[in-house]
């Protein structure tokens, strides 16, 4: 099932034609509930709501999705625990980097059609990181790897926008680098886990202004999903509605600029489109990290040119 929030935080489910069916009134106390808790309530009581929603979409032709404002499905998650440096970079790494994660501010979330507003602070460069995000379905504390499926409610597209060089590196500076307002585009919807039989066998693609930048496969993940669940939940409890983005393959990363259109799509998860605004109109060389490497450039990231 594909779940989304739309218009004034109504809850929708996509039917077989891809149209939006409003299921809000199936949810208890829906109108009183703050927007950030609406999908959490559904996750917490999924066995109750799933048959009701199924019934709704079978009997309702719905409305065209293009006629609605799509909102992030989890507009202010309890936690976003993001895996750091978690790909084998198409096998070019000899071994995984040590497992690590960071928290991203719940206030950084934006949704489909929204705009990334680049910080005016003097970052080295701003990059997109296309990521597969897991949505937690059940409280996990010291979860066992073998039980990983029990804890995952679903998946969605996630872009971990990164403002390089902010903070106080080499000290852990993830707050300044990863939590700037509007740095967490997600959606357009949550795909429930039953529709993604193998999350480690998915194509992940990201385009900037129609040009393919990132194009990788989740089989290249370094610490696999069961290990990510086990490790993150050994430190902090994961709660229903928490989000765990699983990291990115860095080879296709590149700069984002004022006026850019960014699109991201993981198989079966719909296309997420966001825009970029930079009040300072800064410019960087339009090259991905891989393109720079192939040209023999020493610096990994695109240099600023204006």
């Amino acid at each position, binding site marked *: 099932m594909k779940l989304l929030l739309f218009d004034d935080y109504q809850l929708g489910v996509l039917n077989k034609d891809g149209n939006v069916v409003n299921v809000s009134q199936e949810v208890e106390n829906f109108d009183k509930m703050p927007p950030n808790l609406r999908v959490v309530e559904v996750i917490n009581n999924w066995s109750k709501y799933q048959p009701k929603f199924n019934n709704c979409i079978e009997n309702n032709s719905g409305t065209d999705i293009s006629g609605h404002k799509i909102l992030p499905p989890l507009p202010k998650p309890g936690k976003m625990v993001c895996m750091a440096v978690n790909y084998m970079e198409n096998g070019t790494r000899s071994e995984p980097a040590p497992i690590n994660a960071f928290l991203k501010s719940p*206030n950084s979330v934006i949704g489909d059609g929204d705009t990334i507003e680049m910080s005016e602070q003097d970052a080295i460069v701003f990059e997109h990181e296309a990521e597969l995000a897991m949505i937690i379905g059940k409280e996990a504390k010291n979860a066992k790897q073998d039980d990983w499926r029990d804890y995952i409610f679903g998946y969605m597209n996630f872009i971990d926008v990164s403002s390089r060089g902010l903070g106080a590196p080499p000290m*852990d500076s993830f707050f300044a680098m990863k939590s700037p307002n509007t740095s967490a585009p997600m959606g357009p919807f949550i795909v429930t886990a039953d529709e993604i039989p193998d999350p480690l066998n998915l194509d992940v693609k990201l385009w900037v202004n129609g040009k393919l930048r990132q194009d990788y496969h989740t089989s290249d993940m370094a610490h696999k999903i069961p290990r990510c669940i086990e490790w993150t939940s050994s430190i902090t409890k994961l709660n229903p509605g928490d989000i765990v983005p699983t990291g990115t393959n860095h080879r296709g990363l590149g700069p984002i600029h004022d006026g850019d259109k960014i699109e991201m799509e993981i198989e079966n998860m719909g296309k997420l489109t966001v825009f970029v605004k930079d009040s300072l109109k800064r410019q960087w060389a339009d090259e991905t990290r891989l393109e720079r490497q192939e040209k023999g450039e020493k610096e990994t990231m695109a240099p600023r040119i204006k």
Partner: protein
Amino acid sequence: MKLLLFDRDKLGVYKGENIVDVSGAISGNTYFSPQGIMNDIIANFSSYKSKIQEIVNANDGVPASSVKISAPLPYPNQLIAMAVNYMEFGARSAPAPINAFLKSPDSVIGNGDTVELPSADAAIFHHEAELGLVIGKKGFKIQAKDAYDYIFGYVNFIDVSARGLGNGSFYWGKSWDTFGPMGPCITTADEISDPQNLDIKLWVNDVLRQDFNSNDMGHNIARCIEWVSQTTVLEPGDIIVTGTNHQGLGAIQDGDKIEIEIENLNRLTVYVKDNLKREWPTGIDQATADRAAGRTTSGGFGERS
């Protein structure tokens, strides 16, 4: 006014040593969590204040020891912690570059609760006594000169820290469940005349470990709010903890009682449990104190030899 939450979802106010239940001021409202109660009180304090004060005036309350006090912000949307933010009694020649990290909302515990040390192989677990700023008003890109307009009140906070894990990763060092003792109450800003001149004390098993003043802060309160709000939108019920003076940090271990008290913020007491019963030397971790003050360039902070 000293506001708190107790017996899970009751709103209280300290009246001397007693606690007055002022939940009547919010009866009829729908809340989805105890944090939601405090967020509403903070965001709309001007409309609740007189009603709360009336109830306090008309009641004697009950002894604080007769109720279970929880953290006044039991699940903050943003718990933002300043990193390396003291001059270490003036030992540093300049403040460290300004920096912060997010601490998990699941780390928060309240008065009388227990810090549970994880089995992870940390070199040492430290207490860090810190002044917490409770945000009262939504703000983004706040200027330092306006920063105090955004502070609702102040709270004791202990930033419990696991050293030597994950090569300096803050998630790995700081976000463990139960590593964020907070409370017992939020003292509203009108009762703290100079937050940049407060004595901050922390005891372990009744022995004074940390004893410093907030005037030794590296980046002052106004600058912290300015800097943090360049990155993220601050909202009522968010909390910024302002860092610690590392002179006086020491190990915490199974069976310890930890108390923190900042002037006029009342005393917070928590306990420590370690299923592995590991042992460290008691008293001050001098290697960490020396490293933080710049007297040495290695050792301390759980660095393994």
